[in-house]
């Protein structure tokens, strides 16, 4: 094709749109055609082995309302049900696959396997919940300020016992003759936790809401009481740089932080206070009391995220790494590799693998041992704050039925292992179906 002034201008326009699309994370199809908007619908099915299942439906629409001004809306509907670990002791440290319980005598103990499928096990809690949420965005150009783009956002999400309000802003500045894009972002979340009444326990177990001296644990007879609603505020900041390295390579480097204050504990998570039992040569744990977990009321998280995209005419490699750390001393390293392969313009396959290695928060404990009659100010047995390793792998197949419609299905397998043996490993199956339409 001969390069004339007209088609050179068109090529420049399309290439610029491509770079801006890369910065904004838009899904661009039909580069040769003008796109006024797009719609996307997805349905996700998430199933843990013998535990939680989730069905999630999402709808997203983005429309150009006037020249270079865009509005978008996202709707989400989740249903969740199943049994989830509540933090009570399930595995004794010496007998990795058995549950220790006390008898009426107090010192002898029976053991039973930590049956993954037993939803009535004392270390599992059953729940059902639904979530409805919506997010809105308005994007417009700031031509007089470095030819940048500004985006305002807001949203609300509500569940039976949780409500979240959020608002944010993002500024994207093309620099270096549009070979680079500098992004600044900020947002605030105001969350309200309204948990249901305290966990009901059977038998002779006592439940206490606040830590009391270990020597008085046996005297703790307070019944479960109504748990008042509490707030959590999250202030977030983000700075990022996207850089075109050469004709086929793009880099992204982000730094983000979250300053979180308020009630940060999980109101349904428990911690077993235990003492060591000796029965002949056998050693186990005696659960003497159960407390609600108690996390600090402040948390500052930071992360550095790096991504490289390398393209070939039909393939694209996405490689990303995230380093996460916070004031709770929790650290995580996450590596994610994706490979796209396009077969002509009508179908593609994507394969990916993700690995996450997490080190625990400083107040995380499988149980609080009170042999020494001392107890910590903060404690949590929530396995999500513990030492864990997560692997995810999957494949996605996409069909582009015409230049403006795409359907895809993605199947993932996820496995999470707990390096301190607090729980049996978790296996998850995830399926996601997407329909994308340009309008």
């Amino acid at each position, binding site marked *: 094709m001969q390069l004339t002034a007209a088609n050179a201008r068109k090529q420049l326009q399309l*290439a610029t749109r*491509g*770079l801006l699309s*890369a*910065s904004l*994370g*838009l*899904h661009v199809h039909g580069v040769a055609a003008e796109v006024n908007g797009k719609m*996307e619908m997805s349905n996700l099915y998430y199933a843990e082995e013998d535990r939680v299942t989730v069905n999630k439906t*999402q709808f997203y629409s983005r429309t150009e309302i006037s020249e270079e001004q865009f509005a978008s809306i*996202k709707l989400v509907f989740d249903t969740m049900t199943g049994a989830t670990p509540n933090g009570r002791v399930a595995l004794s440290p010496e007998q990795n696959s058995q549950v220790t319980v006390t008898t009426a005598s107090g010192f002898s103990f029976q053991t039973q396997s930590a049956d993954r499928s037993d939803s009535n096990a004392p270390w599992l809690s059953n729940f059902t919940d639904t979530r409805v*949420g919506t997010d809105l965005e308005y994007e417009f150009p700031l031509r007089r300020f470095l030819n940048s783009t500004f985006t305002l956002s807001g949203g609300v*999400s509500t*569940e039976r*016992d949780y409500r*979240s309000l*959020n608002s944010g802003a*993002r500024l994207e500045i093309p620099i270096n003759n549009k*070979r680079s894009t500098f992004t600044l*972002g900020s947002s605030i*979340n105001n*969350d309200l936790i309204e948990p249901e009444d305290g966990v009901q326990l059977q038998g002779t177990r006592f439940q206490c809401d606040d830590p009391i001296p270990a020597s008085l644990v046996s005297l703790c007879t307070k019944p479960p009481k109504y748990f008042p609603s509490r707030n959590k505020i*999250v202030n*977030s900041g983000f700075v990022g*740089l996207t*850089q*075109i*390295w*050469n*004709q086929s390579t*793009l880099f*992204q480097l982000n*730094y*983000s932080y*979250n300053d979180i204050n308020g009630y940060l504990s*999980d109101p349904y998570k428990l911690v077993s206070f235990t003492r060591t039992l000796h029965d002949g040569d056998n050693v186990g744990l005696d659960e003497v009391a159960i407390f609600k977990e108690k996390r600090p009321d402040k948390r500052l*998280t930071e*992360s*550095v995220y790096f991504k490289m*995209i390398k*393209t070939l*005419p039909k*393939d694209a490699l996405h490689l990303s790494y*995230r*380093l996460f*750390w916070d004031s709770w001393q*929790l650290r*995580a390293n*996450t590596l994610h590799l994706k490979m796209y392969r396009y077969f002509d313009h009508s179908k*593609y396959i994507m394969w990916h693998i993700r690995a*996450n290695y*997490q080190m*625990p*928060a400083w107040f995380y404990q499988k149980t609080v041992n009170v042999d020494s009659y001392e107890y910590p100010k903060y404690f949590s047995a929530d396995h*999500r704050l513990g030492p*864990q390793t*997560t692997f995810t792998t999957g494949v*996605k197949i996409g069909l582009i039925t015409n230049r403006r419609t795409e359907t895809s299905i993605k199947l993932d397998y996820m496995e999470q292992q707990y390096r301190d043996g607090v729980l049996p490993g*978790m296996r998850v199956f995830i399926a996601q179906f997407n329909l*994308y339409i340009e309008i």
Partner: protein
Amino acid sequence: MHKTKYIAATLLFILVSGCAYEKVKPWHRDLLAQPQAQLVPDPLELASDEHIYFSKEGAFGGQGAGGGGCGCN
């Protein structure tokens, strides 16, 4: 941790300095304009994945500001 921050800052400097990469003209960016070369090829898929990992891990975020919005962690 300070060492990590210095490494990140150095990477950022290299990216911004512009001295080690090609000066790619806009009409040479056709490969990067393809759908598979977008930073976020599928926003809904990313949102679902991030929600799953937010619910099951202690770490979260990295690709933008904000997060959460549910009682799942």
